């Protein structure tokens, strides 16, 4: 998995609430069997006209935001489907952190599995960052120290220690779980004794 430690660069402001996964990556792009190459479809319907030309008013079509590494948005970011294509598309575009006052559960979870850091900050802090981003100020997201720095201000954020550990070290979840294979096997043995119908097929 991709590692995440500290990231500095341009942040794109997207002052919208309830940005859903259909907006992040519409379904016609879910037909891929790969994880990569989705960046060009990120926010497709907001970014492009039906004919495929750029909409100049959309932030990611403007300089310097074409090179954004951080996205700042409003409440309930990533609501909707479980499609991991949403973080894949962000990642492929070059966005490695999203800052918002709140996230939808599945999207939040999916980010960590793909080396993207979702940062939850209070609404007022996000409003300030949205303004700073609109003024093209650089943002630093520092995971080891759990802080966002922008315009000489520092904002601390919470993150679960285990997720932080995995992200900083780029650890593969499956490998970690399989270290406990003995416990899984023991659980199965016990469950099979008590609820044999779960193993009947």
């Amino acid at each position, binding site marked *: 998995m991709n590692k995440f430690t500290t990231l500095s660069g341009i942040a794109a402001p997207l002052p919208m609430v309830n940005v859903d996964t259909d907006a992040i990556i519409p379904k016609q792009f879910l*037909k891929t069997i790969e994880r990569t190459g989705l960046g060009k479809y990120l926010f497709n319907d907001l970014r492009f006209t*039906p004919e495929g030309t750029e909409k100049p008013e959309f932030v990611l079509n403007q300089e310097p935001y074409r090179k954004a590494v951080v996205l700042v948005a409003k409440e309930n970011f990533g609501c*909707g489907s479980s*499609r991991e294509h949403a973080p894949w598309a962000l990642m492929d575009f070059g966005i490695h952190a999203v800052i918002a006052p709140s996230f939808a559960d599945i999207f939040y*979870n999916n980010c960590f599995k793909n080396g993207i850091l979702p940062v939850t900050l209070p609404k007022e802090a996000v409003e300030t960052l949205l303004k700073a981003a609109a003024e093209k100020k650089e943002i630093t997201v520092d995971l080891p120290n759990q802080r966002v720095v922008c315009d000489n201000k520092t904002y601390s954020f919470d993150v679960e220690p285990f997720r932080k550990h995995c992200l900083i070290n780029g650890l593969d979840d499956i490998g970690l779980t399989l270290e406990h294979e003995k416990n899984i096997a023991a659980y199965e043995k016990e469950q099979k004794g008590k609820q044999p119908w779960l193993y009947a097929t």
Partner: protein
Amino acid sequence: MSKPRTLFEKIWGSHIVQRNDDGTCILYIDRHLVHEVTSPQAFEGLRLAQRKVRRPDATLAVADHNVPTSHDRLKGITDPESRNQVDTLEKNVKEFGIEYFGMKDKRQGIVHVIGPEQGMTQPGMTIVCGDSHTSTHGAFGALAFGIGTSEVEHVLATQTLLQRPAKNMRITVDGELAVGVTAKDIVLAIIGKIGTAGGTGYVMEYAGSAIRKLSMEGRMTVCNMSIEAGARAGLIAPDETTFAYLKGRPLAPQGADWDKAVAYWKTLPSDAGATYDKEIVLAAKDIAPQVTWGTNPEAVAPITGVVPNPEEISDEGRKDFIKRALEYMGLKPGTKLTDVTIDKVFIGSCTNSRIEDLREVAKIAKGRKVAANVYAMIVPGSGLVKEQAEKEGLDKIFIESGFDWREAGCSMCLAMNADKLQPGERCASTSNRNFEGRQGRGGRTHLMSPAMAAAAAVTGKLTDVRELVAKPVTPAKAGV
């Protein structure tokens, strides 16, 4: 005596393989449903790491999101990308030894319809699928939630997931529903009340006499849309309705196992005195048929209502959202919902494509005609639902009324196949999401119950189904 526990706490507690110091748990997963869209990268990951599927016997695969629903689909999928995804799934299930319902199999259908239909979904289980509407299976008192592709791979390889316990919310709906008001209206009313993020971080348990009176189909509709309130899972305590539904299904426990299973299932309902982190109460009698006017499921109103005015909203974020939604939907503040005309009707999706939903549609459709300005499609949830409907003669009613009666699949719920709205087209839909572009770029979706969608089909506009229920068709009007 031990502390009273909720249904959620009981299921959670009995699936912990290991508790970590930070409060996360390795949770055992009893059943895993797999479909073509969110699994290719997971199988590829297994191959790269040379891992196997730990329990093929606990895994079931089906192609549903991409498949055509036209009658000639056995000739093959024409869209090369969709075909590639389905072919990839077929290759993967063979390689990893997973049971698969292909397009030729009459058991094929939407992943959340076939799990319960086969009896795979059972009380007390943990069930996952790479699809957010996995919450549907909670109707059986199973802890069921959607996961991303990385987690699909994790479950395939380990039969577990790393999880943190959710908070508990109980939503109680007591009393009698009025005629014409259904499970879909209950859940839309709940989402309207708590909002699309109201359930974030919670598992929502639905309780109360109105919920207990629902059939399994109705319960599935309610749990299905839990995710639209932000909750990953919904739950309804198993009872005699649940057991009766499951008995005799191919994957349900058989013989002596059946009795043992039922005895266990009866221990699952929340204990008296169990506490919840949050409680919501609704009175069934206050719920009118619901219809959405905006671009998420919380943008909902009773059919007797009007399109809201963003200028009357003080919260800036909400005001912007409503403005944008009305622009997208092509609606003016103050318009009566019953004055909104439609172009298409979609009856289907994992929310409302089961036999009972189709019976509701038939009741309204019988003796009436789809309005001249409307194209209306009915997409059964599975090949078996289709077969049952045809056995009951519902297909004849649909066809006679002018509905297009199709093959099973997700279809225009997410418009990944050929079934989609054109820009600006307005659709009365029984699905679960009305996000911008969900049913096709520029398409305008109004979510509602099957009965309401049928009413819209025959009148050509959003309609209070109660008026049609009260006004049976006269022979003179029928067949016009």
